[in-house]
């Protein structure tokens, strides 16, 4: 008889329940990703002239084995555009000279926009959002401090191991001055940013759900492991027994993420208020109190006058309405001052983040149910990847966990990160499931290259900038995206990388480019443009979210509201900000086209561009077309293209502004603009 799926699941669960340690650790440990990283020797290749970096040797060796040739180098202007988007997420300055590529790459990485571009990648991984999401969509009004921390870290090329440690346990690190201490505490926002069921009536469940979210995020983001799967049963595919899950959970149970679990629960924030801040706040509060007194005194006086004037013994209802004109005006003035003061709340600076609580061990909760506690699990790291020694009872274990993850001998951390970087450059990772390196993940297409990169990354001080330079200076990155017939036949999906991928701009570069080419982009770095009271629900009682996105700052500074993401982001595959996602989708759907055809943002951009073009009185139409092509496509038009465009504006309609605007829009909605080739 065929075994039904239901029976199978029952058996699996039953087996998992009967013995928490039935997982064969020794067997599970044999999985490729759990093997120590060994730097492989560089393979030999025939076409040595093509090789620019060791990366190319790995790629070429495979191509040669398959009988394929790498594509020729991309045209310099295409490559320049590609490099600028890779590093800054913005188009090159029009008509800028192409210095040698090596220098160009270095220069671009030294701009503040580099940190913004790369921070946004990392924010995808850490499910960054400015609101909690779920049922109680409370404002993370201070999340931006974490965002700024990430931007600064990428710009400063903070070693990735240090970056990891700070995000898990920055608050526990020795301090090197007040500024560093503040940064390190802000970094722990990583653990606090997740969506939480803030109105969960079962407080223990709420706490365990928050811990689960932390473990899940930490596992996927840093280790490429779906640790969260082991909450209710031993991991079905990876060697993570439930016991190991609760050993980890104990570390987070020993950590303070929440200040209050009472509905609506409040997450903890690190306070950065100095005595000076507090003084200012007190001063402001005193001002309010004084103004209140002034209002009351005035009302009392006016009431008294009223009684005298109207010869009354008792005040009428709504006495203010019967005041003299002068008194009414004066009272309104005093009240408006009071209102202004009250609205202008003095907020003490703070940031989301965690600190240590009491060190405790948790029991296994059978089937994830905290009402069914099993055996106590001393805190330790997953045994398949560590010695499994218990952590001291004197500490939470968070710092130890951070150091274990960021250790050069951890087989996953460096592999996962270099694969992410590769994914962000090529649109596909060497492991195509960048958040899952477990059994259910996909095996690497180039395992030796992955290991070589991981080893190189660690040897080079975990420097992301160096890694980016290495990749961008490779012949592999610099290939044209044009396929040849043999490649389409033998390797149609380009797994072997005989050409560069053709990539559509992501939501943020698309939006930023539109503002940039129309001269509107504000390149101010850091801070927040979204002012919202912390912990307040972003949806009002009528389920309206009043957040606007009209700012000309870069897209990374636009608020990310969970359950209600900015429509442009939503349309162009911005990831769900509630979960780890290092692998954005790339869809092609009609509403995107409607956006490019009809949205106010695109219209505003094109109207601005047309106005600027027409303001250049010295230019003739051919020169205007050239200016436009250079801005939008980073190249000059051919003679035919130029003629065609000039004919279009001459024939489109009587109004010059409208005609040029239509031309601008045709260009920015065309594939040559939207795609990086």
């Amino acid at each position, binding site marked *: 008889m065929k075994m039904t799926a239901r029976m199978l699941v029952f058996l699996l669960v039953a087996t998992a329940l009967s013995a928490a340690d039935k997982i064969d650790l020794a067997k599970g440990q044999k999985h490729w990703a759990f093997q120590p990283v060994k730097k492989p020797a560089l393979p030999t290749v025939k076409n040595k002239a093509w090789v620019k970096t060791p990366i190319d040797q790995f790629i070429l060796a495979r191509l040669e084995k398959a009988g394929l040739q790498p594509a020729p180098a991309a045209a310099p202007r295409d490559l320049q555009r590609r490099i600028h988007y890779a590093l800054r997420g913005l188009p090159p300055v029009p008509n800028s000279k192409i210095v040698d590529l090596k220098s160009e790459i270095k220069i671009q990485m030294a701009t503040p926009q580099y940190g913004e571009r790369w921070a946004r990648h990392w924010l995808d991984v850490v499910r960054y959002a400015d609101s909690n999401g779920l049922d109680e969509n409370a404002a993370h009004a201070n999340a931006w401090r974490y965002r700024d921390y990430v931007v600064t870290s990428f710009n400063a090329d903070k070693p990735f191991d240090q970056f990891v440690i700070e995000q898990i346990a920055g608050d526990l690190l020795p301090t090197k001055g007040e500024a560093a201490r503040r940064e390190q505490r802000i970094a722990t926002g990583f653990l606090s940013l997740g969506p939480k069921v803030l109105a969960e009536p079962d407080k223990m469940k709420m706490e365990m759900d928050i811990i689960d979210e932390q473990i899940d995020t930490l596992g996927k983001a840093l280790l490429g492991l779906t640790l969260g799967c082991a909450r209710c049963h031993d991991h079905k595919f990876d060697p993570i027994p439930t016991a190991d899950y609760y050993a980890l959970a104990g570390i987070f149970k020993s950590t303070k993420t929440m200040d209050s679990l009472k509905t609506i629960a409040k997450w903890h924030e690190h306070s950065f208020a100095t005595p000076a801040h507090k003084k200012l706040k007190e001063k402001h509060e005193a001002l309010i109190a004084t103004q209140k007194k002034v209002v009351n005194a005035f009302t009392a006086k006016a009431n008294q006058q009223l009684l005298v004037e109207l010869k009354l013994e008792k005040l009428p209802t709504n006495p203010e309405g019967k005041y003299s004109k002068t008194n009414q005006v004066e009272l309104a003035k005093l009240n408006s001052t009071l209102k202004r003061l009250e609205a202008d709340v003095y907020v003490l600076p703070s940031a989301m983040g965690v600190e240590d609580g009491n060190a405790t061990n948790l029991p296994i909760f059978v089937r994830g149910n905290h009402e069914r506690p099993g055996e106590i699990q001393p805190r330790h790291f997953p045994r398949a990847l560590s010695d499994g020694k218990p952590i001291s009872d004197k500490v939470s274990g968070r710092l130890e966990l951070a150091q274990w993850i960021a250790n050069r001998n951890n087989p996953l951390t460096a592999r996962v990160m270099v694969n992410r970087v590769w994914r962000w450059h090529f649109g596909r990772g060497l492991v195509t499931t960048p958040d899952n390196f477990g059994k259910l993940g996909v095996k690497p297409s180039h395992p030796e290259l992955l290991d070589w990169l991981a080893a190189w990354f660690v040897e080079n001080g975990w420097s992301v900038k160096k890694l980016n330079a290495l990749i961008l200076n490779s012949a592999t990155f610099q290939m044209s995206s044009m396929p040849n017939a043999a490649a389409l036949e033998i390797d149609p999906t380009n797994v072997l990388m005989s050409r560069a991928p053709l990539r559509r701009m992501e939501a943020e570069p698309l939006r930023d480019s539109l503002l940039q080419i129309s001269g509107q982009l504000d390149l101010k770095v850091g801070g927040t443009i979204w002012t919202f009271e912390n912990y307040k629900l972003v949806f009002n009682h*009528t*389920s309206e979210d009043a957040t606007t996105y009209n700012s000309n700052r870069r897209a990374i500074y636009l608020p990310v509201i969970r359950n209600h993401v900015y429509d442009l982001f939503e349309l162009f595959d911005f990831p769900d900000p509630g979960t780890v996602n290092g692998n954005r989708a790339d869809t092609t759907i009609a509403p995107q086209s409607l956006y490019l055809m009809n949205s106010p943002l695109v219209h505003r951009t094109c109207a601005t561009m047309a106005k600027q073009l027409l303001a250049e009185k010295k230019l003739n139409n051919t020169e205007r077309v050239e200016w436009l092509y250079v801005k939008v496509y980073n190249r000059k038009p051919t003679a035919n293209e130029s003629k065609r465009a000039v004919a279009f504006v001459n024939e489109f309609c009587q109004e010059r502004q409208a005609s040029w605007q239509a031309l601008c829009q045709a*260009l920015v909605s065309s594939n040559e603009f939207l795609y990086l080739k």
Partner: protein
Amino acid sequence: MNSPSSIQGNAEFVTTRREFLARTGTGFGMMALAGLANGEQPHAPKAPHFAPKAKRVVHLFMNGGPSQVDTFDPKPMLTKLHGQPLPVKNFRTERRTGHAMGSPYSFKQYGQSGLPVSEIFAKTAAAAADDLCVIRSMKAEVPNHEPSLMLMNCGDGQLPRPSFGAWVNYGLGTMNENLPGFIVMCPGGYPIVATRNWRSAFLPGAYQGTHLDTKHTDVTKLIANIRNSRLSTSEQRQQLDLAQALNARHLKARAADPQLEARIQTFELAFRMQSEATDVFDIKREPKHIREAYGSGTHGRQLLMTRRLLERGVRFIQVWSGNGQPWDNHNGLEKNHRKLAGEWDQPLAAFLTDLRQRGLLDSTLVLWGGEFGRTPVAEYPALNGRDHNHYGFTCWLAGGGTRGGYAHGATDEFGFRAVKDVVHVHDLHATMLHLLGLDHERLTYRHAGRDFRLTDVHGNVVKELLG
């Protein structure tokens, strides 16, 4: 300039738009077009696994959770015990509950089948009792909105899985290349958890629901960016011709590229949608007697638009009661349920009658219900409303090959827990897919190294529900 003369005169550009599109389309055969991801053709019509009864789905979502004992599952025993504690212990629900609360409404039998229905749905019952296939033994997993919405819509309470509508479009493709295959209407904004209710998750983005805020009557507000504020249709065509000529040049240099071809096609779809959508959502084009039958309220408008979308081949339409969770009547149930049902009753009666008269009901599967039901006991402290109840609740199906005038399964004598012929949400999904000609165990999508299903590893087709 009205004809693209300068395109024709230029060797760099292909001759006409038609020819150009024909050329770029050849790579795909049946090119279609609401979207495309990674070179697939998500919207091409696909053959079901076996002969279907239903071709389309309408899901009427009573979000918040309507009370079964006040609508389609009469419980005389509860009325008898009104005000007293139940002789059994209350099940663990979200909040604290107390004594039994009999339904404040009366029930009557309708149609040849004699199906008992509450007075608050009298018109629906009078018009279509013999079409309704009432499932009184529904069961979900937890008494919380969010996971229950996810379970009902996506087949899993917690993990990010694709929605039912996305699966159906993935399985069957589209019947109208000018409109999205999955349309979601919700007046006033979003239900809770918002777009996650109609997400495509790991399925290609083309399958996700397109949300319309049906509080608006103007099509420009219904669909984002549906109209160009500056250009006439012919001007826009002219502009699009130029953009497509630029695209043709860009593409020509590179041989076939499915991504670029898809982008080109989606612009054409978007262009067509502008007029098609304007037409389909304009209910003023309906004769007066039809509009009057549906009534002038929001739900009448939603259901009339739904019928027009069905006629044009839209595969999956989800219609919500409103933003937030309107049916979540922890307090003041009598008044609130009466009001909510009152807003639906006449439009529902008109909709089902209209579909039947047009011969659409047989091939349209209608699902009515919430994410769960409500407790037969009253909730503290007000004791005039009901708490969430996932142990037993009611949904009904109509049309699309279901068994009309039939009540399936049963809850206990108080309406608390489903006890007879229990239908889990997975079973409902399996059954609905079956009616669409899809085997829920074979409708799979490979993601992260595993084949996923709407029903995960669960679900059984409930044969009794089939007509």
